[in-house]
């Protein structure tokens, strides 16, 4: 059976379902959980050449603060669910790649994601991050709605 679960969250309401189901599943199976949140790199594409070191620092600080508060909420939810969990902030990565990296680093054999996160076009659609995790993942993925 599965031994180590990775739950991906961006702190959105949609991904809260993935968090709740993931924590419940981990508890039921009595297995390890890692929760990851990913923040994207500051500059890429055309903006990469802009001389914006100070802005980059501001962004980094904001991203770190944001991730910390998301993961704090995760800890609280895990405490309430009665499940111990590790948390991890992966920075400067696009979400799907960051999620896969976290899974590989921690040796997870199941990834849980929401069907969509913050960037939602419609509830009917599958989010681009979830879709990419599904196509890139070497391990089983559980998509929650």
């Amino acid at each position: 059976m599965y031994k180590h679960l990775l739950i991906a969250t961006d702190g959105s309401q949609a991904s809260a379902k993935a968090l709740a189901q993931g924590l419940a599943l981990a508890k039921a199976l009595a297995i390890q959980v890692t929760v990851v949140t990913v923040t994207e790199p500051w500059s890429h594409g055309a903006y990469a050449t802009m001389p914006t070191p100070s802005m980059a620092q501001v962004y980094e600080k904001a991203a770190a603060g944001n991730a910390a508060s998301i993961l704090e909420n995760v800890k609280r939810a895990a405490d309430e669910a009665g499940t111990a969990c590790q948390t991890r902030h992966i920075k400067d990565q696009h979400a799907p790649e960051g999620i896969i990296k976290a899974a590989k680093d921690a040796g997870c054999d199941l990834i849980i994601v929401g069907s969509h996160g913050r960037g939602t076009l419609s509830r009917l659609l599958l989010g681009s991050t979830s879709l990419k995790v599904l196509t890139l993942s070497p391990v089983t993925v559980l998509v929650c709605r």
Partner: protein
Amino acid sequence: MYKHILIATDGSELAGKAVAAGIDLARSLGAKVTAVTVTEPWTAIVTGEAAFGFPVEEYEKSANETASGILAGVSTLARMADIGCATVHAKDQYPSEGILDTAKKSGCDLIVMASHGRRGLGRLLLGSEAVKVLTHGTLPVLICR
């Protein structure tokens, strides 16, 4: 946690992994299992001149035989794992529709399926039926690779 797991299979090798994972998970969670296999309508499979050589009666007979063979395999595995398993052959439907219909009728709370079935183009891609089950349904879906 999950109480009634729907396992979808087309009898392919990859679907075999989903069957094994679904049964394993059901046993760990003490959940019920329903296994479903879907056969498409005759008109979707047999077109043009081939229709004269493969009449609808014969197609149905062969579809029934294939489906019962696939489902018998799942039943055997479930029995070996000592869990209750109902089987459903959803006829004359497209796979994703048959899977979602069965999940609804049986009151399942989790769908387990492979990332692609017989028609997988490549391991990098996500099968069209898996995507449709994800986008058209509202249940969590565990996608095995």
